[in-house]
């Protein structure tokens, strides 16, 4: 069978916030752009985001500005962040949010008619632009409608909606293609027909999101099989920070079938409190030293903060997510959990019922429909859930370029921006800021490209053989292999890690690699989920190995990586990045890389006292030198 073939300037893999913003940019710069995504257009994971997009617009508290946002982001990431990304993000997020408004987004408003902003963990001021608790839907719909608007423009000028930007929905990319060391395109299949498709394109932007489907308890959907992470590895790029996974503190715990589904942090931002089975607001016992002077020490002070932020400190329920998740984990382990194995999250005694329904409509709906719980009258039960991967493709901050020429990445699939822990709300803004930059980066790359790379038929044939294989053999059920991987990662490389357990996980992963080679998919090529899963398994296993190997090497606890056998942060580890790569396409090697030092004007934004909690003595000496000059 002839393989369907398309030629484009740029292919953007992923139609979430990052992919759509990248595609819009590439098209606005005159490049012919294809958007390829596994689900229907408008259904990408971004649609599920609830709380909001962080941007220091200063609409609610005018003291906010990019420098405060930058500091909060670096603190949240425990100073492991790529500081240049954190800087660009803090500076550009407001423009990216305002731009959405000019494309038709309807955010909630302040009294004076500006975009309203809400409190969130780790953000010093109310900073999240939002629409109730369905911000992701607004974001994705606005970008989707912007794509349509551009298509309408193209229809006016060229008589063809798809002249410059086309969406290939329900289409999965399984391999990137290269000409020498440069990207030359991508290979994939249509989910609907099972037919193969080849994209001939000199630039690829990966915006495929995360990896949560390697865990049992997760807030992530079936799409999160780490495809982009694996595609990049297989094309020769590096992944960094893969040991850092964010376990969101509040996922649903009951009924079992919804375990892991997210309960937005806005519940706490809007006044919700956490209690254990003894009725105690336990978070007051878990404020770590580095944050001691920033959080309230009594319930009264915490409560006053909601109305008077100038004279009170914030309640510890709003600590960064890694802290809250570990605290809940510890309470449950100590036997102070709720009957269904979580803790209580209560907003019913804190806000009037009508207010809860207005501010948290989808939470109200979700609990009522799925758990028979009325959150305006009773507490929810919640526990940690695998939510977000800080690690991803190592990119140049300004252009989103990976080390492979022609390859770009943005959004959750890229690494560095969030360091060891992401603040809530910083992802949606990350998607917009770096999606745009990656689209522009790809356009600039094309402008400087001497000759168009060629697609190599040998690679296409190999990709095709690889994709067809599970259909052609009667092998093990892919669902079983998947479940074993999920259990392994959940139990052995979860929220609290130890060397023996992680090593054990690596052994299991080795065996799973062999089993993945042998899984079979019954049925035809047409819309066959068993076959699709069989192909996704290669990616999940590869990425799980990265997570486990990096977790074993990093001998400290920081952000989304907690080692039982190495509690506490170690400043010398802050200077190290663990970079994963693969030579043979099946096994992962890790190399230590140095974290570049922060620019002088940026490090000077911090107090000496604070920095001394994170930096080595030599780094502090350097800081003192900068401070003096």
């Amino acid at each position, binding site marked *: 069978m002839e393989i369907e073939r398309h030629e484009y300037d740029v292919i953007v893999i992923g139609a979430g916030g990052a992919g759509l913003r990248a595609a819009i940019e590439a098209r606005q710069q005159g490049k012919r752009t294809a958007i390829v995504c596994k*689900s*229907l*257009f*408008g*259904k*990408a*994971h971004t*649609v*599920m985001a609830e709380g909001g997009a962080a941007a220091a617009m200063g609409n609610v508290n005018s003291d906010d500005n990019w420098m405060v946002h930058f500091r909060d982001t670096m603190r949240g990431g425990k100073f492991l962040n790529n500081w240049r990304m954190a800087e660009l993000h803090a500076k550009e997020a*407001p*423009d990216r949010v*305002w*731009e959405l*408004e*000019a*494309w*038709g987004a*309807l*955010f*909630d*408003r302040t009294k004076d*008619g500006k975009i309203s902003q809400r409190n969130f963990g780790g953000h010093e001021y109310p900073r999240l632009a939002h*629409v109730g608790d*369905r911000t*992701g*839907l607004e974001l994705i*719909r606005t970008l989707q409608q*912007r794509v*349509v*608007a551009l298509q*309408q423009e193209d229809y006016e000028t060229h008589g063809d*909606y798809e002249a410059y930007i086309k969406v290939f929905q329900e289409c999965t990319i399984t391999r990137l293609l290269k000409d020498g060391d440069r990207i030359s395109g991508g290979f994939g299949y249509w989910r609907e027909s099972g037919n193969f498709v080849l994209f001939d394109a000199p630039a690829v932007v990966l915006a495929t999101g995360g990896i949560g489907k390697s865990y049992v308890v997760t807030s992530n*959907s*079936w*799409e999160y099989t780490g495809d982009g992470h694996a595609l990049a590895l297989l094309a020769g790029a590096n992944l960094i920070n893969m040991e850092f996974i964010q376990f969101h503190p509040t996922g649903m715990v*009951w*009924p*079992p*079938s*919804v375990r892991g589904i*997210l309960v937005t942090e806005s519940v706490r931002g809007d006044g919700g409190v956490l209690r254990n089975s003894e009725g105690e607001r336990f978070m007051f016992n878990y404020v770590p030293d580095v944050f001691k002077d920033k959080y309230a020490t009594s319930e009264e002070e915490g409560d006053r903060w909601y109305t008077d932020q100038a004279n009170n400190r914030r309640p510890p329920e709003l600590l960064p997510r890694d802290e809250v998740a570990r605290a809940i984990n510890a309470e449950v382990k100590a036997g102070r959990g709720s009957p269904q194995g979580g803790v209580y999250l209560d907003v019913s005694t804190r806000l009037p019922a009508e207010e809860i329904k207005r501010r948290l409509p*989808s939470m109200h*709906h*979700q609990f009522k*429909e*799925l*758990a028979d719980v009325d959150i305006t009258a009773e507490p929810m039960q919640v526990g940690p859930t695998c939510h977000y991967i800080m690690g991803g493709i190592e990119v140049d901050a300004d252009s989103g370029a990976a080390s492979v020429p022609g390859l770009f990445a943005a959004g959750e699939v890229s690494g560095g921006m969030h360091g060891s822990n992401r603040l809530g709300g910083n992802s949606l803004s990350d998607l917009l800021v770096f999606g745009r930059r990656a689209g522009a980066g790809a356009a600039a790359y094309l402008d400087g490209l001497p000759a168009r790379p060629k697609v190599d038929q040998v690679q296409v044939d190999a990709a095709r053989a690889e994709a067809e294989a599970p259909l052609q053999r009667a092998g093990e*059920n*892919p*669902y079983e292999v998947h*479940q074993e991987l999920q259990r392994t990662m959940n139990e052995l490389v979860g929220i609290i890690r130890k060397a023996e357990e992680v090593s054990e996980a690596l052994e299991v992963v080795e065996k799973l690699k062999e089993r993945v080679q042998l899984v079979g*998919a019954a*049925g*035809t090529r*047409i*819309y*066959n*989920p*068993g*076959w699709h899963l069989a192909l996704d398994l290669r990616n999940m296993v590869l990425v799980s190995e990265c997570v486990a190997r990096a977790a074993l090497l990093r001998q400290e606890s920081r952000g989304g990586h907690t080692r039982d056998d190495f509690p506490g942060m170690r400043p010398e580890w802050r200077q190290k990045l663990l970079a994963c790569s693969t030579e043979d396409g099946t096994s992962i090697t890790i190399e230590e890389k140095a974290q570049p030092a922060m620019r002088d004007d940026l490090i000077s934004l911090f107090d000496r006292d604070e920095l001394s909690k994170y930096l080595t003595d030599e780094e502090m000496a350097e800081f003192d030198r900068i401070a003096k000059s």
Partner: protein
Amino acid sequence: MSYKAKFKVWRGEGGEGKLEDFTIEVNEGEVVLDIIHRLQATQAPDLAVRWNCKAGKCGSCSMEINGKPRLGCMTRMSTFSEDETITVTPMRTFPVIKDLVTDVSYNYEKAREVPSFTPPEGVRPGEYRMQQVDVQRGQEFRKCIECFMCNNVCHVIRDHEENKPAFSGPRFFIRIAELDMHPYDVAPDRKETAQGEHGLGYCNITKCCTEVCPEHIKITDNAIIPMKERVVDTKYDPLVWLGNKIFKRSK
């Protein structure tokens, strides 16, 4: 707690298919989509179904359960009795690709025909000022998760393929209403085009669309009826009618 339920699931591809019988375990708190997933994992690995969020937020898992359009992920098994046979079929208005998955491209084509948000010239990003009360009306419609169940249930196209070219369906009536109510949208004649180009006139206000909407958007009361009323106003007021025409020609 757990029991065995009887299911009939529509299976087939390429225009042919039939209801297949399954007996399958059901546990406490589960929804129909969980059962479909269990069928995939244990009895029918190639059973096709769309889903993403499993929490009623993405609008992927639209299907018909005992003949009623529902989101599979928000339909609790506890709403059925244990001895009831549950029949699951794909949405009827759209061509079936395989099993529970339908070709919904009709909706994406219609989306492209609605002129986009058109802000006035000269307002720069960051300068927009709107009151909460003014955005709230549009926000109701922007809650739409594009499950397309309203379009699926609407009798104008449900068994009338021939009406599809002229009729955009309730999903896009609320899109037009939303733009019409946007404080900064200056595109002319939103209501008139709803009538003239998107087939609002076919709607006879049966309210079936409002009844199935999982987001509880009052499609008929808050979008369709107000647009119809105003279309009628402008249509039958001879002065306005004349004014519009004269204005348009002299442009």
